[in-house]
């Protein structure tokens, strides 16, 4: 069989391709539209959720741009870049999974979904490495947090009064609070996404879906792409404030 466009009949899939219709829907299209619309509105709530955090970030960064710039210099730009590529690739595999399910190619769908989950897990692994490095350098907010000496010195230079220095030092820590919290919340969303994608892949393998599971996978795809897009915003905001790297 060629891998170009293939009709549903040629796909040679076993058993049912009739999607089960819930009693309260008139037809499959209505049911599918409802699910997708529901996922879009859910993503709207997620946008509001992250917006609150990004607003807090914006306010504090506007108050102490230098503190945030210095904080950002501690981020691992290349690891973050690698992670961005990993996540974008995972969105690709997810989109391919959706397409495969539309074409009725179940095995491929399962494969692509597993690949998505693996890439997502890879992202989380790199993130864990980053976190452990930052914690080791006393950059995790709380009792063990220490402003690195050169950053404290740099902030002292630009602070006109001791109170202003206190503010700047405080905002340096707040930058890390926001970094850990926002990326933590993002990672939490990724974990949920990976778990669901794997569950769906397993269900797909066992022919649990009444049809090709297209609507469910498409809805999941929307969620996955959203989590990806959030990262695309977070990466420049947190990692790329000052690429020149100079103090």
């Amino acid at each position, binding site marked *: 069989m060629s891998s170009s466009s293939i009709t549903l009949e040629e796909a040679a899939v076993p058993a049912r391709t009739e999607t089960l219709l*819930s*009693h*309260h*829907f008139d037809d499959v299209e*209505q049911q599918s*539209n*409802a699910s997708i*619309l*529901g996922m879009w*509105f*859910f993503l*709207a*709530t*997620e946008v*509001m*959720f992250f*917006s*609150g*955090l990004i*607003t*807090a970030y914006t*306010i*504090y960064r506007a108050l*102490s741009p230098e503190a945030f710039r210095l904080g950002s210099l501690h981020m691992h730009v290349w690891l973050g870049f690698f992670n961005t590529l990993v996540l974008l690739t995972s969105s690709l595999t997810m989109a391919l999974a959706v397409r495969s399910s539309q074409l009725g190619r179940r095995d491929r769908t399962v494969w692509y979904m597993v690949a998505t989950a693996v890439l997502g897990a890879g992202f989380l692994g790199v993130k864990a490495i980053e976190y452990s490095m930052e914690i080791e350098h006393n950059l995790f*907010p*709380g*009792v063990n947090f220490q402003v690195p000496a050169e950053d404290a010195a740099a902030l002292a230079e630009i602070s006109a009064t001791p109170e202003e220095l*206190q*503010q*700047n*030092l*405080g*905002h*340096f*820590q*707040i930058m890390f*609070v926001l970094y850990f*919290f926002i990326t933590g919340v993002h990672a939490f969303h990724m974990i949920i996404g990976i778990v669901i994608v794997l569950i769906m892949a397993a269900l797909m393998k066992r022919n649990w879906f009444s049809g090709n599971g297209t609507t469910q996978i498409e809805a999941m795809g929307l969620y996955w792409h959203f989590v990806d897009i959030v990262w695309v915003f977070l990466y420049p905001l947190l990692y790329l404030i000052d690429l020149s790297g100079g103090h």
Partner: protein
Amino acid sequence: MSAPAIPSDPPADYLTDHTVKSWLLTGDHKRIGVLFLISVTIFFFVGGAAATLLRLELMTPKGDVLASADAFNRLFTMHGVVMIFFFLIPSIPAVLGNFLLPIMIGARDMAFPRLNLLSWYIYLIGGLLGIWILIFGGVDTGWTFYTPFSSMYSNTMVVTAAVSVFIVGFSSILTGLNIIVTTHTLRAPGMTWFRLPLFVWSHYATALIMVLGTPVLAISVVLVGLERIFRVGVFDPALGGDPILFQHLFWFYSHPAVYIMVLPAFAVVSEIIPCFARRPIFGYRFIAFSSIAIAIFSFLVWGHHMFVSGQSMYVGAIFSVLSFLVAIPSGIKVFNWTATLYKGSIRFDTPMLYALGFIGLFTIGGLTGLMLASLAIDVHVHDTYFIVAHFHYIMVGGSVMAFLGALHFWWPKITGRMYPEFWGKLSALLVFAGFNVTFLPQFLLGWLGMPRRYFEYRPEFQVLNVMSTAGASILAMGFLLPLVYFLLSLRQPRNAGSNPWGATGLEWQIESPPTSHNFHGPVLVTCEPYMYSPEEAEREYAHEQLVHHS
């Protein structure tokens, strides 16, 4: 051809299956509405018990009823948290919205029945956590959780409360999601947007706020929790944080939240008035669009809670203007409902009494809101009993009365039984009178300068406080009576009939109580809502009188 079915007695409806499993695993929107009804009623009386203790304490200037100021502080916090998060926000949408919305649009269920059931379980978990807090120590930050008191100084179960509110917020989001998607995708053929009952329009607007606003509340309480656990300094000025940031994040949700609490009340009133005035509603499109306008504008006015917080006076001016603007769509509704009475054929059954009472009390509450939007006046009355009176006029005189009116109106549909009309009317009058005696004096108290959340107060404020407590006792009776007679009505057979009020609307074209799938066949909508005729009502009435007297 199958043999004709032998009619069973009584006919099978959504209440027939009595097993616990059928209730706890239901996907039926009507059952979920009933489950929510039971839960929110319990929480209403929990919050009411707290209020009773508060009012008893406030009869005297010194602290003598409660053990300590700390007990008082925990009580008013729990009263607010329980009433707002566990009663008002879910009340009409999760009880009546769930029950009625699908039927009103000609659908067999909500778009996501399982998410609907999940929303109830999530609500229960959050609610149980709230009860846990009540038993094991309480919270004393006020329902507003202002930092740095909540994040650094309070010694009570703040983190648990934050988790509880966070969880129950998800219930709200799921209800909102269901309402939006259902309204978009499950309308029966012929049910165009402008043939929708206004109940649906208002709930749609409510759902928009639920879905877009609640996540910001989630963030706010999570940040407070993080601050308490990790001491990181987001709201701690000593570490560069800003306590006012919390207020902005908190009110960004909590102002739209008050419209979550009142838009469904508008929905109910828009159904009751045309039915009991026996005429089409006046200004359908204006009422419909004003709901959407309120939902949008509600997100733009949060700063009016912060006029004296230390925010810039220019920002204050902007929020003041916007707050005046948001009042206008509400005014449009009040005028349109009043105009609906013109040339009607009006009956004064219990639901109508509640709806008319709503209009009056909401007008007062709303106009005092304009006073609060006025910057200089707010400086004087902010954080006093004037504010307390204002929001109770809207939330009790408004939302709770609408909730009660809705329960009376749709009780025959939900249960198949009628409530006793005499007791219904009596309760409505008790609620109206008791409410005004409770809260009207509080406007005066606030203007005189009595701050809110005060355990002890200056002796010259006592007379008005005693009046307020006296009113509260009447109000309490007005609330307890329906609990009794609604429950007693369940002992009757299900003989209310499918349309005891002679109302229009799809829910009245089906049985009382409805069958599991609502409709027996495909639904086709061919006309506008509220196709009442006052002249025809008069003719019927005259005929009845003739028959009666002949």
